[in-house]
């Protein structure tokens, strides 16, 4: 039977996936074709959405950039006349237009994303789903499970990078009448969407990972804490959990063993700090999400004072694979201290923006140029931002750096949860640091003085610098404040908040100096430090900019070179955007 799968992750839906899905439904009915129409998660190629895969007689054809208008032709030519529309196909047994994006990836976490229908448990079971938990319940003791995860070398994928097996062991070792397992799905870093895609594309893998963890540490109750901003992920998780209860995979006496587990979803309410584990637990308890001092660690005293194990979505999604394939296989991937693969969300000034999974140890250049296809509009690669507001900017000169926990940390950035934002020559690093400080300052919970006030002062200094009012001594003041905020904050948010400033100062200090001393923004980004001008060579006097200018600052006769009155110009940039001849220039 013919099978048509439409990519309906958030990225697919934003690109019009639901409209395409409905059009297929209508067209199939209209032509009375029997074919199975199904939805699937994101396969990582967000830049090619809407993706539609047609499976027919053991062959698969992946169509990219499908629009409602293209559906009719696909049905007519491919489905009715068995004549695939080759110009729109990017992958089949004879076509491979996206080889460079796919060939160096190794999919463990994303193994089922874009392959199965996440809302149908049968599809997950058919490809070996829930085999790992059965294997564990039949053949493994708790210690053996922990041992396997320890030996695999799996480290926390939420950003901390702590050994997962070790974490499980600590919780296992604590004696208590009740223990909890929590999945941290409060993916808050702007620019990171790995966990969202995993939950949308393969929720059962995460649930199975949680079950294995719960069995290993001796927990009988679990929570998944998901951002409220991820409505689709919540919906798919709810479906998956309900299916598990129905099948008896959750509840009492799971797979006829003595293992019991209940899993509930807790929706976050919009606070970045709740990604920190102690704040997250406070939030589940219904309180303000404010972190507390550790120790005691959650493994000793966590949710409602009981031993609790918290792992990230991606970490859990790795677990069933490790159990089924053995720790040796996982251990063989990656570098000495960073094993396995890592999922990255590629975004920013990159050609192929999407989700990739690569073995640890690949270089930054290999990911950006090999897989990501290089920089948009072939501009110059300037830096890559890793780890979101807690991370930093790694300059292009370090492009040969291997991606693993230790190498990334040595640059001053952090591996983080996997956001990889590519920056080009038009990105101002001072402005970017300001952007992140604005974020952390907004999201600081206010408990620690240095985080609450220090980030505010740092933001003010950065605002001054980008407004052309920077003074000598500002850089030193930023460094001094950074140092104090790092050492006097209780949780990861404050301890890492200065990182974006520190790394940009480390690698792009001259940009700060240019802003302060020469009152220039080398990237031509900071409004207060640039002037718009019209090039006498390129301007043909078409008058488009005159019409667009909201303040009437541009004058000039038709077919003659135009002129900007700097006194009236508000630097909104509209003339720059609208000019087709590149005649408007920034100075």
């Amino acid at each position: 039977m013919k099978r048509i799968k439409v990519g309906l992750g958030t990225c697919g839906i934003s690109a019009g996936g639901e409209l395409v899905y409905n059009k297929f439904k209508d067209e199939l009915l209209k032509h009375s074709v029997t074919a199975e129409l199904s939805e699937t998660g994101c396969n990582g190629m967000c830049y090619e959405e809407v993706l539609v895969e047609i499976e027919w007689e053991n062959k698969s054809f992946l169509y990219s950039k499908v629009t409602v208008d293209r559906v009719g032709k696909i049905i007519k030519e491919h489905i009715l006349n068995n004549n695939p529309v080759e110009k729109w196909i990017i992958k089949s047994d004879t076509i491979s237009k996206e080889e460079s994006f796919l060939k160096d990836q190794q999919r463990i976490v994303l193994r089922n994303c874009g392959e199965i229908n996440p809302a149908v448990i049968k599809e997950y079971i058919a490809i070996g789903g829930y085999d790992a938990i059965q294997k564990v319940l039949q053949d493994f003791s708790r210690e053996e499970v922990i041992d396997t995860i320890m030996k695999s070398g799996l480290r926390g994928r939420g950003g901390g990078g702590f050994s997962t097996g070790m974490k499980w062991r600590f919780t296992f070792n604590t004696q208590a009448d009740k223990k909890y397992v929590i999945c941290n799905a409060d993916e808050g870093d702007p620019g990171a969407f790995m966990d969202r895609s995993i939950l949308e594309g393969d929720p059962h893998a995460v649930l199975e990972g949680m079950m294995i963890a719960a069995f290993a540490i001796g927990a009988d109750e679990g929570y998944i804490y998901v951002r409220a901003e991820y409505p689709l992920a919540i919906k798919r998780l709810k479906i998956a959990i309900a299916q598990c209860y129905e099948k008896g995979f959750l509840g009492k006496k799971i797979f006829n063993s003595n293992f019991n587990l209940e899993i509930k979803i807790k929706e976050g309410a919009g606070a970045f700090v709740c990604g920190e584990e102690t704040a997250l637990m406070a939030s589940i308890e219904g309180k303000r999400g404010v972190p507390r001092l550790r120790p005691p660690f959650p493994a000793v005293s966590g949710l409602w004072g009981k031993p609790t194990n918290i792992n990230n979505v991606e970490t859990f999604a790795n677990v069933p694979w490790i159990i089924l394939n053995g720790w040796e296989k996982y251990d063989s991937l990656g570098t000495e201290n960073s094993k396995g693969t890592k999922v990255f969300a590629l975004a920013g000034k990159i050609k192929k923006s999407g989700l990739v999974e690569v073995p640890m140890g690949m270089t930054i250049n290999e990911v950006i140029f090999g897989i990501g296809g290089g920089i948009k509009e072939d501009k110059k690669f300037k830096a890559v931002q890793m780890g979101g507001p807690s991370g930093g900017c790694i300059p292009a000169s370090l492009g040969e750096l291997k991606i693993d926990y230790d190498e990334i940390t040595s640059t001053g950035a952090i591996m983080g949860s996997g956001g990889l934002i590519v920056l080009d020559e038009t990105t101002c690093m001072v402005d970017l640091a300001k952007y992140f400080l604005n974020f952390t300052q907004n999201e600081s919970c206010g408990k620690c003085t240095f985080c609450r006030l220090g980030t505010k002062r740092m933001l003010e200094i950065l605002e001054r610098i980008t407004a052309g009012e920077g003074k000598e001594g500002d850089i030193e003041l930023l460094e001094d404040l950074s140092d104090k905020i790092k050492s006097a904050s209780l949780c990861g948010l404050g301890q890492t908040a200065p990182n974006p400033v520190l790394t940009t100062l480390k690698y792009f200090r001259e940009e700060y100096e240019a802003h302060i001393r020469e009152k220039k923004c080398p990237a031509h980004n900071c409004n207060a430090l640039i002037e718009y001008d019209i090039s006498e060579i390129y301007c043909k006097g078409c008058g488009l900019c005159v019409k667009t200018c909201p303040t009437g600052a541009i004058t000039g006769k038709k077919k003659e070179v135009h002129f900007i009155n700097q006194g009236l110009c508000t630097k909104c940039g509209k003339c720059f955007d609208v000019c087709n001849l590149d005649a408007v220039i920034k100075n």
Partner: protein
Amino acid sequence: MFELNNLNEKKEIHNFKIDLINKYGQKGSLISLLQSAQDSYGCIPENVIEYISELEGTPVADIYGVITFYSQFRLKPLGKNIIRICEGTACHVNGAKTVLQELEEQLGVTVNETSEDGTFTLLSVACLGCCSLAPVMMINNETFGNLTTSKLQKTLKNFRSKTTSEIK
């Protein structure tokens, strides 16, 4: 049971009531109660806070503290249509600032404000997670990507004519 003086009784308060019954006395349910209250009323009305306080035995001040801590909760209702502009990193480096300026100009409101006629509320979000389409905004549940100022003008114009024709 509590009275809903200033609210439209016909609104979907059903879910909230069910939630209240299910979660009565359950520990840690405050945030989910507030979420279902907001789903039902569009914001969290004062008398609902008082009612939850009575029910849970939690002081009103504590509940107010929780409401103001989380950015999702609102004490005032929003406009008919909600525009969310993404301020994620990918959007930021791809020119979200210019788009936001244009949006504020077109709507005549700044972030977190509702237009006078109650048609639009403009909100900013940390990241919508559609980084490959940056810069992005959402009008209600529809996402619009790869925005430029001219594309934004067109989108708003289309949306406005669509909503006015629906009213007619």
